[in-house]
């Protein structure tokens, strides 16, 4: 980033990515220039780390925190605190009310939760499976007698005395939140709402203030384990986060800020920290990068984007098609099945810190899934790591500068890595150390490439219509490797790759999204009258959701005319158990022709995602859900636009050369300082472009040029 403009800046936007170890801040000024701040995270009081990171970042611009904050109009938070609270089971003491007779179902989980997130070998290895502690223990779970069937018809009327008893027993246990989830309440909410009101009355009668969460008020969708887990998260983990966010907001206000923080949510937009459904901010960090890519795409005209992010432990991929995110409706997280709309992101447990091992029995090469994380690898003598990692390969092969890791804070020892690689991998495979290390990198790249490819073809597309964005600390190291031969339209490495997630947070829309379960069933050959009737039912649901969206915005001071609305729906062939989310091609649905347009959009998507032969229109169609998303315009980081200069990089960008091994030979790679390169510069591999937080590798056979937006474009030549 140019460091020449030090005064007179008006800082507009703040993005925050509060990770487990580091807290990144990302500031954008009115000209679209940005700066990244880094500080260690402070889990006990997140505000401290945030303030420190901000000071550090603004320091690069020569600004004090107080100077900068007063002009900032928007601040977006993302972090892992809530997720960690869940993983470490450090949430609030909650009570749970379910159907009488089914009090065990939450702790039984779904058995799938005993191996969620496992690698193939462990998924089949029975003795490795285990359940985590339930979020609410059995002794704080109570049942109420009632039953509603799948059509929403009452089978057993609610016995209110059982609800009163349940409430009193939980209140007596001093719970900090009470969650209610009854079977099929998404279909007929009356019993569950009545229980909610009874519990509230009992709480009041007891003179306490315990929040009450009925699943139907939050996530009224089918599959009780998903719905209940998610509603419990609201009580168990989201409420403490709300307090944290409140603290952060006031810490910044104390330093002169005037804005309210928004939080990155699983659906890919940001919501106010006051929003009702805060559990959907449980994973926000990794989504930031996807939003950043989407925003860049919107501004610069990339409609289909494959987002790829490599950090120390994982490779995350997400797709943006036609400027739209893909949403998953029953994802899992922290080994819990959930019913949140989540930006579909797939993760492979393979990052720069991943360990490399040979199977002692079959000599197969295994990467990860565990990782040295921040301890880098054997090459860092003080790390205590004895098993070689991907980073060790980087050091052996000359990808990384051992003297400039994290800006030189950590000195790496190539010989240590080389010796370990020889003993652990190269000798047993009968390869030279260099070939073994290069082979591992090739294998990793190939795994990642396959992953990208299968994700894109799984959506029914080919890479040729996609631009691949590569970011994260190690993304640019491997960008050439995992994109080679896939035929992407373009491969882009932003110059601020290491801070890209925080950037994305700053670029996210202020967006509320609400979903409602529907159960519309219609034959393929239904009459026009019936089609029109179903269209109108969907339209009514859209209308209802619109009101909820608008209400949320009104709370934040936006008027109705400022909100842009986008309806969607979920459809499946009748009788199926999985639906597809479709963005509606029409904004209102009233006629049979409208209905046919919805069906056509669904059939088209279905054939692409699965196979044309899997289409089953003869079964008829079910609409299972209505979706409404609303956004309001907010200030976003301006994308820089600098004039392009010559193709030849300035001499002062050159940092000498380093030996670099690939494809069975050593070459001398030209080294560059990333920040000194100028728009228009063109660099032909072998070259390595270094900055403090990331390294961009351009091997022979590749070329990159820097455009006026400070985006590197990588090409095979």
């Amino acid at each position, binding site marked *: 980033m140019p460091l020449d403009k030090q005064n007179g800046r008006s800082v507009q936007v703040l993005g925050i990515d509060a990770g487990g170890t580091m807290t990144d801040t990302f500031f954008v000024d009115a000209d679209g220039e940005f700066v990244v701040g880094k500080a260690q995270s402070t889990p006990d009081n997140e505000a401290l780390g945030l303030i420190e990171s901000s000071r550090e970042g603004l320091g690069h611009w020569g600004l004090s925190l107080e100077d900068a904050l007063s002009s900032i109009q928007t601040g977006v938070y993302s972090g892992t605190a809530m997720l960690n609270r869940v993983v470490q089971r450090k949430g609030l003491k909650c009570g749970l009310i379910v159907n009488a007779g089914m009090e065990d179902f939450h702790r039984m989980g779904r058995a799938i939760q005993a191996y969620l997130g496992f690698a193939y070998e462990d998924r089949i290895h*029975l003795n490795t499976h285990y359940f985590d502690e339930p979020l609410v223990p059995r002794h704080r779970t109570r049942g109420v007698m009632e039953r509603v069937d799948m059509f929403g018809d009452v089978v057993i009327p609610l016995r209110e005395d059982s609800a009163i008893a349940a409430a009193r027993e939980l209140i007596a246990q001093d719970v900090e939140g009470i969650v209610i989830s009854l079977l099929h309440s998404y279909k007929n909410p009356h019993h569950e709402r009545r229980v909610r009101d009874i519990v509230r009355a009992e709480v009041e009668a007891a003179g306490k203030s315990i929040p009450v969460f009925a699943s139907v008020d939050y996530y009224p969708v089918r599959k*009780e384990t998903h719905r209940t887990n998610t509603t419990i998260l609201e009580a168990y983990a989201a409420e403490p986060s709300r307090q944290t966010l409140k603290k952060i907001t006031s810490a910044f206000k104390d330093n002169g800020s005037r804005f309210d923080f928004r939080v990155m949510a699983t659906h890919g937009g940001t919501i106010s920290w006051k929003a009702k459904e805060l559990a959907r901010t449980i994973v926000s960090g990794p989504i930031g990068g996807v939003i950043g890519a989407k925003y860049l795409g919107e501004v610069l005209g990339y409609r289909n984007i494959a987002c790829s992010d490599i950090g120390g432990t994982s490779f995350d991929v997400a797709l943006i098609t036609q400027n739209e995110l893909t949403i998953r409706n029953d994802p899992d997280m922290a080994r819990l099945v959930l019913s949140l709309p989540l930006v579909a992101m797939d993760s492979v447990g393979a990052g720069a810190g991943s360990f490399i091992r040979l199977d*002692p029995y079959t000599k*197969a090469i295994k990467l990860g899934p565990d990782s040295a994380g921040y301890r880098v690898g054997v090459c860092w003598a003080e790390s205590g790591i004895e098993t070689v990692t991907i980073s060790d390969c980087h050091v052996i092969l000359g990808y990384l500068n051992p003297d400039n890791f994290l800006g030189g804070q950590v000195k790496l020892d190539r010989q240590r890595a080389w010796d370990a690689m020889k003993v652990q991998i190269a000798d047993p495979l009968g390869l030279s150390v260099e070939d073994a290390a290069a082979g591992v990198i090739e294998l990793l790249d190939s795994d990642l490439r396959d992953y990208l490819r299968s994700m894109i073809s799984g959506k029914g597309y080919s890479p040729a219509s996609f631009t691949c964005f590569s970011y994260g600390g190690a993304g640019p190291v491997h960008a050439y490797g995992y994109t080679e031969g896939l035929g992407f339209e373009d491969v882009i490495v932003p110059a601020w790759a290491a801070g890209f997630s925080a950037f994305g947070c700053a670029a996210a829309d202020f967006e509320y999204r609400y979903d409602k379960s529907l159960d519309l069933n219609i034959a393929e050959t239904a009459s026009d009258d019936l089609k029109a009737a179903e269209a109108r039912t969907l339209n009514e649901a859209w209308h209802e959701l619109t009101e909820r969206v608008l209400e949320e915005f009104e709370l934040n001071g936006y008027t109705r005319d400022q909100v842009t609305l986008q309806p969607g729906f979920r459809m499946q062939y009748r009788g199926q*158990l999985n639906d597809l989310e479709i963005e509606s091609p029409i904004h209102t649905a009233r006629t049979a022709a409208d209905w046919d347009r919805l069906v056509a959009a669904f059939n088209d998507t279905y054939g692409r995602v699965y196979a044309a*032969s899997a289409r*089953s229109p003869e079964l008829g169609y079910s609409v299972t859900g209505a979706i409404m998303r609303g956004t309001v315009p907010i200030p976003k980081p301006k994308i820089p636009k600098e004039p392009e200069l010559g193709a030849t990089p300035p001499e002062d960008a050159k940092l000498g050369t380093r030996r670099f091994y690939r494809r069975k030979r050593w070459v001398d790679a030209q080294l560059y300082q990333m920040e000194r390169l100028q728009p228009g510069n063109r660099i032909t591999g072998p070259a390595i472009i270094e900055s403090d937080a990331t390294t961009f590798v351009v091997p022979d056979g590749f070329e990159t040029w820097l455009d006026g937006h400070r985006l590197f474009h990588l090409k095979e030549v």
Partner: protein
Amino acid sequence: MNAPIQIKGIVRGGQTLKQHRDEIIEATKRTGHYAGLKKMALRDSDPIMYNKLFSRLRAGVVDARETAKKIAASPIVEQEGELCFTLYNAAGDSILTSTGIIIHVGTMGAAIKYMIENDWESNPGVRDRDIFCNNDSLIGNVHPCDIHTIVPIFHEGALIGWVGGVTHVIDTGAVGPGSMTTGQVQRFGDGYSVTCRKVGENDTLFRDWLHESQRSVRTTRYWMLDERTRIAGCHMIRRMVEEVIAEEGIDAYWQFAYEAVEHGRLGLQNRIKAMTIPGKYRQVGFVDVPYAHDDVRVPSDFAKVDTIMHTPSEMTIRPDGTWRLDFEGSSRWGWHTYNAHSVSFTSGIWVMMTQTLIPTEMINDGAAYGTEFRLPKGTWMNPDDRRVAFAYSWHFLVSSWTALWRGLSRAYFGRGYLEEVNAGNANTSNWLQGGGFNQYDEIHAVNSFECAANGVGASAIADGISHAAAIWNPEGDMGDMEIWELAEPLIYLGRQIKASSGGAGKFRGGCGFESLRMVWNAKDWTMFFMGNGHISSDWGLMGGYPAASGYRFEAHDTGLKEIIASGGDIPHGGDTDPQNPVWDAMLGGAKIKRDKQAITTEAMFKDYDLYLNYMRGGPGFGDPLDRDPQAVADDVNGGYLVERFAASVYGVVLKTAASGLFEADEAATETRRAQIRADRLARAVPTRDWMARERERILQKDAGVHVQQMFAASFKLGPRWEEGFRKFWDLPIDWQLMEADLPIPSYGRDYSMDLSELPDVKTVQFVEE
């Protein structure tokens, strides 16, 4: 013209499928290495390329399963993951598989081999973009409800492999509704049977197939979407293979397709060497077939008998890591649906191995080539009659395999791999099945798969996990109740962990669970039970107890409609202590069946009737008296143990803590345990005396007819096993036990006729017989 006809095969290189397979088998036999691959040239010269191919192909098959299952409508497929996709080389040996019901790695391979051996190549022909379907249990399938779709893979006009996909369908049009029915006693009642039939060309299914198959089953919609799931998955994998070949070249792919199998074989051998101790391991399994009961209605008098199925096994591990499994002494096939083909029996053992011995990246037919099996012909797991039924072969498969866990676990224990010890798998039942008209007023069949989540056997360091897995699919799941209620006109009144269902032990077996279902919105409805009842199907290990066996609870004319309306007590939750039931008294004049008859045939049910679906637990490890007393108290508090068994089985005396929860009374427990140990000693007799007493009973034939029949059948088919029995008990030569002398019919005893005796049929022999 008289010129000799040049026969050119369809396999890459010009061989016919038969020539190709013969060559592979011959080379394997000759060298002891798969396909004669003493060296793995690709892996050794280019390990990176080899690993890349492996990793990419496996990711592809796993991904195809995850994607394709979303097409299905059946919760069995979509929620329980009862599907699997496998990639084969041209000879029909598996290279790689997805997760799921991986027993079919072997059964689909057997179908491909059947096509090869019976010259499908010339008639009906095997061409690019063909689709084949198979579910024939006589050639290796587990049971008819597992439907295979098999698609050949061609490259430049030559066959280079196959891909198979399988789903467990909800109904196959058997005598009764459901996929694993009990009423029939011959294969002809098992339902729709399809033998490697070509059902489509040019990636399109034939209309005659669609019409015939869709009317041959009760649940047509599930059937259709299951088939589309299988085809879509196969096509995804075929496309992936094409892409891999385009990138890496056909030579590398072809080489990999054979080296991978040898790799799998070596992997097994090395793991056996590393984890076990050479020697002979013997164990045994039993299960009950209680067919003399009124509630088992079968068409044939000769099937109306109580019998016991028997599987002794001898596992020989050699110092070089090769091994042999011999099942001499197993009882004969029977007139029920619990018979199994040798392929399903051995493939299931392979599945078990993948869960414990070889949970590695490379699981494929290599392990099958690395294992010698001996299954005497005529036994229940290698029947010699083409009339036998297979619909629920799992009934005894699961109880036979649980014995092998014990054998392996003793070896692991000896080597110090305590965490790998597993006292055995649960009997994966009950199977709630039935049918009639459902809540949508359509013909319907139900087949709850909640028992994909049974208790797991204890290890030597920890309790087995509860409600978690099934031997046939380690990725167990019970599914959401709301989804089962979509698929079944039965509402839940309870879903609860089944106390004391896991076997007691120092480490206890995982518990199963139970679901109480009330019939709701059903018309002309039937249901039945399927599971073990009179016999514990597994054993504990090293002093641990077996899991509890099954029982049934059903209630008719319950009066629940009135009870609900009047605010009376409604049975709900679990049948926590079946010996002291509480529901029965709530139901006034209801007709209740509560007994050990855990197998029944279709009984009539109507709205407000009740059915208890009880999923079994796993066996325990170690003496229960060694269990940490507080863990016992926690088990009672947590609903894993019926309170009274704390004292009687574990010797733990409980007291109530201030919190209202139980805790162990340490001093009283110590006293109680000392007493139990003293009682044990008082009860004990020297082995010599006990054997003398038992020998006398044997000489007198002092045993139930079903026990005598079981031994008589085993003696006949296993002369060596009989010899061992005689020697052990020192029986005189004139002591004879013959089925013909018993007062029950034994049709099939002397006369049988195998599939191989049909014209033009070449059966494929996979095991030593």
